[in-house]
């Protein structure tokens, strides 16, 4: 009995199979033969009614039928799924990519890191010092005499008679020299304050990098060479530069370093105030009085120091016209860098 049924179903399947043309037909075929309530399953159910003698041959036939239908099904399934991906475009690649959140360091940080990288390459260490300083470190030990108009060069915020917000990073020079014996070669970045009205060109707080090199044979010629190679690495080759005499109480001789305007190439523009030159830093040979203050013998040791403003440098380099933008922390500004 069962053997006949098996044969009937096999015939039916073989007749039906070639007419399967798409995935939907195939799904109907699967439901009809292979599902839980399908024909193959119902034949297995009938096995329990088959006599002991018939059982081995019926089982064998039934297994072979199931394998045949399964194989046929899988073969068509693979064929249709391949065709399907050829016909239908499921993915629209023009959709936007998934969002990845990212941040950035402040543009002033980036400038400072660039400056640090150059000087570290030249063998300089990096030191830091406090922003709330004593008059001694900020002025006195840097050879600013009491009641001297040189103090007017830096309008100062005081918190008490003898304590103030440092007006420059130069006090860190003193701190470093007090701690160490020559040779000393270091840069000292930091935040400084000036009691100046806030405008697009000036802010009451800004950042500087100070540099210092003290040894037995440090000369002005070496100061020039070092700063020129800094400028070449930082601003690019091919610029002209000049050192002109200036005055700082803690250096003697003192100089200001200008580079030819990289915006107009010296022809004159607003950035360089039509002079063709941009002032980038102040520098000089460390004044013997300063060396005496920290206990270095000025006959034996000489050295140079320099200092530059980070904001001015950044404004020139990135075309930022208003210094206040750095400290407003408008996310639309921060996201640009």
């Amino acid at each position, binding site marked *: 009995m069962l053997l006949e049924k098996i044969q009937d179903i096999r015939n039916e399947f073989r007749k039906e199979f070639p007419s399967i043309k798409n995935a939907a037909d195939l799904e109907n075929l699967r439901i009809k033969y292979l599902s839980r309530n399908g024909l193959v399953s119902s034949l297995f159910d009938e096995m329990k009614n088959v006599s002991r003698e018939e059982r081995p041959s019926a089982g064998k036939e039934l297994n072979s039928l199931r394998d045949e239908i399964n194989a046929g099904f899988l073969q068509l399934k693979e064929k249709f799924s391949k065709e399907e991906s050829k016909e239908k475009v499921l993915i629209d690649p023009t959709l936007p990519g998934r969002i990845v959140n*990212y941040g950035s360091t402040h543009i002033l940080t980036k400038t400072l890191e660039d400056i640090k990288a150059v000087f570290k390459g030249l063998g300089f260490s990096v030191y830091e010092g406090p922003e709330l300083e004593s008059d001694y470190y900020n002025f006195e030990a840097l050879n600013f005499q009491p009641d001297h108009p040189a103090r007017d060069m830096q309008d100062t915020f005081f918190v008490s008679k003898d304590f103030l917000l440092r007006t420059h990073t130069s006090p860190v020079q003193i701190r470093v020299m007090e701690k160490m014996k020559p040779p000393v070669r270091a840069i000292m970045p930091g935040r400084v304050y000036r009691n100046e009205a806030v405008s697009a060109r000036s802010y009451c707080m800004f950042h500087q990098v100070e540099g210092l090199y003290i040894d037995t044979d440090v000369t002005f010629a070496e100061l020039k060479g070092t700063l020129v190679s800094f400028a070449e690495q930082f601003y690019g080759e091919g610029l002209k530069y000049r050192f002109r005499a200036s005055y700082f109480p803690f250096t003697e*001789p003192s100089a200001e370093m200008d580079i030819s305007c990289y915006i107009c190439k010296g022809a004159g523009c607003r950035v360089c105030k039509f002079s063709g030159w941009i002032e980038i830093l102040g520098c000089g040979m460390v004044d013997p009085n300063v060396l005496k203050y920290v206990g270095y013998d000025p006959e034996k040791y000489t050295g140079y120091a320099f200092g530059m403003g980070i904001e001015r440098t950044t404004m020139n380099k990135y075309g930022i016209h208003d210094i206040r933008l750095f400290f407003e922390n408008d*996310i639309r500004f921060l996201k640009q860098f």
Partner: protein
Amino acid sequence: MKVSLNWLKTLVDIKDIPADEIIQKLTMAGLEVESVDDETSKYKDFIVGLVTSKQKHPNADKLSLCTVSDGRAEFQVICGAPNVDAGQKVVFAPIGSIIPNGKFKITKAKIRGTESFGMICSEAELELSDDHTGIIVLPEDKIPGQPITEALGLNDIILEIGITPNRPDALSHIGVARDIAAIFNRLVQIPEVNLIESDKKCTDYASVEIEDPVNCPRYSAKVLLNIKVEESPEWLKERIKRIGLRPINNIVDITNFVMYETGQPLHAFDLDNLSGKKIIVRSTPGKSEFVTLDSKVRELPKDTLLICDAERAVAVAGVMGGENSEITGSTKNILIESAYFNPSSIRRTSKYLSFSTDASYRFERGTDPGNTVYAAERAAAIIKEISGGEILQGVIDIYPEKIKSVELTLRYARINKILGYSIDKEKVKNILIALGMVLQTETTENLTVSVPVSRPDIEREIDLIEEVARIDGYDNIPDVKKVTITLGEKNDESSFASQVREIASGLGCYEMINNPLQSEMLAAMTGEPINLLNPLSGDMAYLRTSLIPGALAVVRKNINSGENNLSLFEIGNVFNKKVSEEIKSFEDFEEKPRLLFLLSGKMSEKTWDQTEKVYDFFSLKGLINAFLLQISLDNVLNDLYYQGQNRIFDLTFSKSLGKSSIGEGGRVKKEILKQFDIEQDVYAFEFDFDALKSIEKIQKRYSEPLRFPKIIRDFAFIFDSNTTFGEVKEFISKSGSGLLKSVEIFDIFISGSLGDNKKSMAFTLEFFDSNRTLTEDEVEKEFNSLISLVTKKFNAKLRGI
């Protein structure tokens, strides 16, 4: 300071040197020319015009319709000045001229329906003075068409020079001329004084006494009788105007002229108003009052140097004159003061009064004590020449102790040691002599000079080296590019901060830099703030005590501009006062760096494939943990959670090392946000940056990937709703054997169907051994034991496995 090149040319012969070269060399030598006003190019377009006719403008009462001739053609010009009239010679700006005041270009214009082809100028428009009440009417003899540079002698070049505080000697035309002479190897020609004195002796008409010779080392005076106070002659007014001063009367103008020529401030007193015909220089014994020239009563502190007559104070020495002795139109007899005052004394007074004049500016930097008599005589001679009168014989000159000039020795070898190149010895000598030094002795190794008392900045050998270097020109110093290797430790104290900045930005945060100066309201929110004695304004009067208030202000500003979604960080110092009194030492306050993270708004907007995600407490926690992992501080710090009991946060978590907290953060309280007008949630976390920096970081070691399979088991329990994930996790981890390697939560479910105040938490447990494959049995055994332990410990009910 404004310097006239024409004036300089009277003092040093530089006619053959192009102005550009003078400007460039002065700048290089330290007298920085900050701007140049070249009259020849500024006024090149302007010509003399003749007004040939004047009518009223047909459509405007206050305007005139004029015809102006340039000698060849006539132009119709509309003019608004009340004083314009036919027949006048005027300054005419043809089309294309650029008006100096306002820098605008004259074009053909239609004014009230009538065309105008040019402009008739006022002094203000030409920046000749600030007089804009009417047009300039030129003398009859000017010829139409003549360039006004020629007609008015506008051929000067005015230099604005920034004089550094060490160079008081350069605050005059003679001082600048001396540098020019040294640079170009020329001679300075000091104007000769041609004194014609009467036979009356000045000491019979006035006397001077110095009671405080420390603050007034020298006081010189000349006396003149029967002078006439009147308007200055043209040449003097022109000189005065070029350097930016307003002509007042001949006496004042001459004292100003001599000050700008020699650097010596002068003051003229009305001799008839000096009681007892006497000058006494003394310091105030205590507080006192004084009526100044501007009719204000000013209070003076103790030890203010005063100029007095026999009865009363007549001037605050070096700073300002008094009403009672000033020169008036009826003044006949005058005493000209030419003194040297102690610079610190004048500076203290000027600072105290917040009052600075051209005179006090020079005195506080240090004038030339050797030059007082010359300046007084120079002024007297010009006054007599211009306003008549008689110069009394002799000079009053009280100089109790002569200020000696310094002698300095310069070693040639030292020049090389400092500058790195050698300068020809002859050149060194010439430069120093040109700058006014007097050669004393000379050897092959060094030379000794005496320094003029006009150069208080030259006190040491190094100062002479600077003089030589700057006059020779820094351009002559070679640039030596060498890198000497310094053996020894290279240090970078900022490297950890740099690393943290990179990590924080990599984790999606933008770096802020906030001004540490803020209002008391913000600063007092989080600590004991330090105030500035002299703030710019109330909102920048205190130092921040935490990075949080400043960051909240940034959140507010960004929300105002429509930017609600913020992920920010900052590294910066905060300041806290440790004493109630004034700060006297570094022990009285604390300055410490902090690191702040802040999240607010949405982490991501709704997109085509996902819904929006909003920052919450767990975003902050995830960020902080990811950050600590990156700086190798994961598994080192303990977490602590609490609600309430915090100034800033209502849901707080903190990180601590042992018992000491190194940072805390959480959800910012609503009442704090309200002060900033912020309505959305803000999550922030602030670290003690020094603590973070100083904790020893775990040295990362490589570990082999697992070679044996893990076995994963899940279970879910129903707990009382106040049971936390943290405590269950800790209990399971502690109760497990060494095979249990991780416990994580993958589902939380709260529903009434679980019973009142119940919640379900589902955990994934990971078991493995890195040396062998585990058997199902041993894991099953441990898993079952954990089920019963958890059930018992938390009174929990197993919900599924």
